[in-house]
């Protein structure tokens, strides 16, 4: 099943048309996306650098992770909503873009990993904790890299 009809529909919605017609709409949404990126990046870095022992706080990494979860989820929500709006500006530009497809795939893997295996590994043995942190940092970095590449392809 192709997702093409969903992309076409998104571009044809009132919101998609409005963003596409507005002069500053895309730019403003892009700024929100960047601010969300800083907050998500900040929380992920603190959590995983704690897990690696490169940031030493009083509490264990698992506690720090649960403490930062609201910020992580909030910034992720801001990123997803602003991201959908960016796509709504011109869905067909993104549908066929290889970097966009790679980013969506990597994002799915990163989110799924972060809230399941990664969560469990943080409370586990040091080796598992560190391996999970390295894998998580690599995955999020790959998401960001693929995101940057969308505009270059």
């Amino acid at each position, binding site marked *: 099943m192709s997702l093409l009809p969903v992309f076409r529909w998104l571009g044809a919605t009132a919101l998609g048309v409005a963003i596409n017609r507005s002069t500053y709409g895309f730019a403003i949404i892009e700024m929100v996306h960047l601010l969300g990126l800083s907050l998500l*990046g900040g929380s992920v870095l603190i959590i995983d650098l704690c897990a690696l022992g490169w940031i*030493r706080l009083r509490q264990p990494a698992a506690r720090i992770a649960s403490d930062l979860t609201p910020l992580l989820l909030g910034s992720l929500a801001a990123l997803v909503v602003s991201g959908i709006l960016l796509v709504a500006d011109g869905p067909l530009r993104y549908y066929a873009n290889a970097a966009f497809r790679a980013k969506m795939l990597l994002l799915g893997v990163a989110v799924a990993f972060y809230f399941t295996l990664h969560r469990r590994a943080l409370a586990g043995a040091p080796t598992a904790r560190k391996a999970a942190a390295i894998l998580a940092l690599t995955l999020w970095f790959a998401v960001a890299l693929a995101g940057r590449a969308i505009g270059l392809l």
Partner: protein
Amino acid sequence: MVAQWCQWLSSTPLSTSIRQSDWWFSIIESVHVLGVTLMVGTIAIVDLRLLGWLLKREPVSSVTRAILPWTWCGLVVMALSGALLFVSEAADAYRNTAFRIKSVLLVAAGLNALLFHRTILRSVSAWDRSPFTPVPARRAAALSLVLWSAIVVCGRAIAYFH
């Protein structure tokens, strides 16, 4: 004076080679965004602790001691890549309104941080473990969040002012 210096900077071999290459600007810009994420992301966490919104069980001094070295790393990456981006389009940047506003905001954010460290943070031992930090500390944290958000917004806006 400054305009002439920017003009001269734009004519240097470093500037023209970044400008004429297909990839260098994009690569440096990507490094810049990563530096911004590292710096602004870590600053935001410290600010949110000062506002008492997260890491409440963690003493303020332990948060600043553990996290601020990473902020400095981010600053170095951001400043170096930012300097290269500036060199590559110095003459245009000089005339760019968003760039001018961003420069002023950067100085303001720097002064806010300097003032915070020189004054409010000196007395941290008195309120280190309290989830409720003194009003001046909260004010500095809120100002820092506003300034850095505006810096990110202006930074993105530079590209729209050409």
